[in-house]
């Protein structure tokens, strides 16, 4: 048993950290988040050309690096830590995962190389009902010969307004629950698709609404298991959930670190406030939260890896993802919330970065299900 990063994984993490510390500074994050696109397109191209991050877990046969989910998670943790504004999450954790799990051989051969070149992608499956399970899929389709005609809307889609490729989930008209679901992959500029940016409280991660009105999907757009794709979509969501948890660990760690650093400098009543036990104990609790979250995210990463490559842990994906997301969501929010409190008045300003983490904590908590949502699903498997 060796539940630690290998030398190579440590190197990947350290390289990511060093790069992000340089390019994803507070100033860079603030400049990117103020735009509707939400990221610096030049930086994204540089990440794709020089760092090759978008290719990390794409198999070598498609030109990718062929690394695993643990490597991906090691990088995501650092992206969360530095609040990197980029289409990485949407493209790699939603787009690539969708293709790896549900893409036909032709779709993989066509789209994965394009993503490696820098094309962006995302996944849209949630309607406006605020759910994250099969019921979230509300857009519908009817079949007409070989083609599918889609109608409906998707909300809270990460980078949905800017992604070049869309994976969308829709259900056969009249179906409900886990049946009747089909996944499609289409260029975002196809006919019948309108996309609208949704301004959000957390500006570091952009969301959009997508509407389709009689959008016609050619047979090449239909992904695996048409009419029966929930089990694939569920796995994609599991993988994406693990990825959010990894980012949350990084965010929770940084919220702790900048807070401790601040309390080491701020003097009140003649000494640094870090010396007061009320502050020390809060910081200790924050550390417990983030270390436990890290354990959960790393374990889930191993499970996700076996989900993609095959292995006996694959059957644990639902539980491991929910355990990680439930804990990391609450941990990040706790750490960022305590962070503001321990900063005092400056924590409430736009200027200090702790507010950015506080907002990311909330948006990432909500996305793909809050702690309560995941506990509900765990409870169902334990008790029903």
């Amino acid at each position, binding site marked *: *048993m*060796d*539940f*630690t*990063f*290998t030398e190579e*994984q*440590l190197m990947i993490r350290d390289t990511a950290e060093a790069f992000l510390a340089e390019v994803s500074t507070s100033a860079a994050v603030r400049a990117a988040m103020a735009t509707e696109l939400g990221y610096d397109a030049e930086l994204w191209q540089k990440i794709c050309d020089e760092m090759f991050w978008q290719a990390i877990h794409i198999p070598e046969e498609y030109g990718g690096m062929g690394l695993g989910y*643990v490597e991906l998670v090691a990088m995501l943790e650092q992206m969360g830590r530095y609040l990197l504004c980029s289409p990485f999450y949407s493209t790699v954790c939603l787009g690539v995962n969708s293709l790896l799990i549900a893409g036909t051989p032709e779709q993989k051969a066509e789209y994965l190389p394009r993503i490696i070149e820098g094309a962006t992608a995302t996944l849209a499956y949630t309607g406006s009902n605020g759910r994250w399970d099969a019921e979230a899929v509300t857009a519908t389709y009817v079949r007409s010969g070989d083609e599918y005609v889609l109608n409906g809307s998707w909300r809270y889609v990460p980078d949905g307004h800017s992604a070049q490729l869309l994976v969308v989930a829709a259900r056969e008209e009249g179906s409900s629950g886990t049946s009747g679901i089909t996944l499609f992959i289409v260029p975002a500029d196809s006919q019948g698709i309108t996309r609208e940016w949704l301004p959000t409280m957390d500006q570091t991660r952009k969301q959009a609404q997508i509407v389709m009105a009689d959008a016609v999907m050619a047979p090449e757009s239909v992904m695996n298991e048409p009419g029966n794709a929930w089990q694939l979509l569920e796995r994609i969501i599991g993988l994406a959930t693990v990825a959010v948890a990894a980012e949350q660990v990084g965010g929770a760690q940084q919220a*702790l670190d900048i807070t*401790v650093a601040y*309390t*080491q400098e701020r003097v009140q009543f003649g*000494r*640094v406030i*870090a*010396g007061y*036990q009320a*502050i*020390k*104990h809060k*910081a*200790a*609790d924050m*550390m*417990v939260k983030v*270390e*436990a*979250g*890290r*354990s*959960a995210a*790393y*374990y889930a*990463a*191993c499970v996700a890896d076996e989900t993609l490559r095959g292995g006996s*842990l694959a059957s644990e994906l639902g*539980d*491991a993802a*929910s*355990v990680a997301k*439930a*804990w990391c969501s609450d941990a990040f929010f706790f750490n960022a919330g305590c962070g503001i409190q321990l900063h005092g008045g400056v924590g409430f300003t736009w200027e200090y970065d702790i507010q950015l983490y506080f907002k990311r904590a909330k948006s990432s908590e909500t996305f793909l299900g809050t702690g*309560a949502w*995941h*506990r*509900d699903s*765990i*409870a169902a498997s*334990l*008790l*029903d």
Partner: protein
Amino acid sequence: MKLSFSAEDEQFRGEIATWLEQNLCGEFEQLRGRGGPGDEHMYPDERKAWERKLAEGGWTCIGWPQEYGGRGASIEQQVVFHEEYARAGGPGRMGHIGEGLTGPTLIAFGSEEQKQRFLPGILAGTEFWCQGYSEPSAGSDLANVKTKAHFDETAGQWLINGQKVWTSNAHESEYCFVIARTDPESVGHKGLGFFLLAMDQPGIDVRPIEQLTGTSEFNEVFFDDAHCSAQDIVGAPGEGWKVAMGLLGFERGVSTLGQQMLFQNELDEIIRVAKLNGAATDPVIRQRIADAHVGLRIMRFNSMRTLSGGGDDGTLQKEAMIYKLYWSTWHRNLGKLAMDVLGPESEVLEAGPYELNRLQSMYLFTRADTIYGGTNQIQRNIIAERALGMPREPRG
């Protein structure tokens, strides 16, 4: 990352599992699942007999080096042993203080003569130890011990005077290791000695303390010119603190996965009750049961990281530092959850005058988890100071 045990470790697992299956039966059958935390007053004599049985099979002190009679088992093998032991419902170990604390301390700091004299009895499961650290004025502030050790030149031995408190199983032990002040003028962690005392002597008086469970597992221990021979001090006079702290460092976390198996049994029992009495339909209870599951899974992952050695960058073991605070808090919450799942039935005892059922006893005992072995507050101080580099507590 590799999450499974090696083939050799799995073979070792089979070996211990088979041995337990063949030996934890007959007269020992009644001990299954007994004598753990909160149940330590149960079957002391039978559990001592079980220790001798374990010793016959070579299953005591497996982590000790072979030259001292152990198996020199690797960390993984020790983890596997504790897992299988817990899985089989092995009774609470009467010998755990000797095996886990006294032995490693003597192996690291003891004289050759001390090793020869004390290790065999621990190995054989015939001599039991208790820990004489805490005193009325030395709890969290352990260095504030007042018990005194005076070397009587004419008799050529140490005389110990003072009082220890909360001494678990003192009434069941042959020996006690005691920290006492060798330099009467000293304060704090200077001027202490680490002594090995036989309990069966006129100068030692053990008085049980009744716990809130109604049972007595710990004691007050009074020393009135208690004898300790000249060669039974570990390290030099004045070096007792170093030995005492070294001892606390021997907990490598090998028993944590086994401990978690007992926790899982408790959670399973709570789930069973919840399904039976309808609590499982209460949305708040559902959230809390799921939360307990999340917490326990993560406890396992934490242990796996700790056991894999070092932080992921090879430095400070932060995940090891959080362990006590994490599990004790989780377990305390589980105790409350158990009572809330039982509902009004949680009040009703197994029998009068004060016989608790298993969940009630677990519930009450969890209130000690956050106190012994360093309180939650002390754990937070340690984390803040050693892991986060925040200023140390001012001292009076």
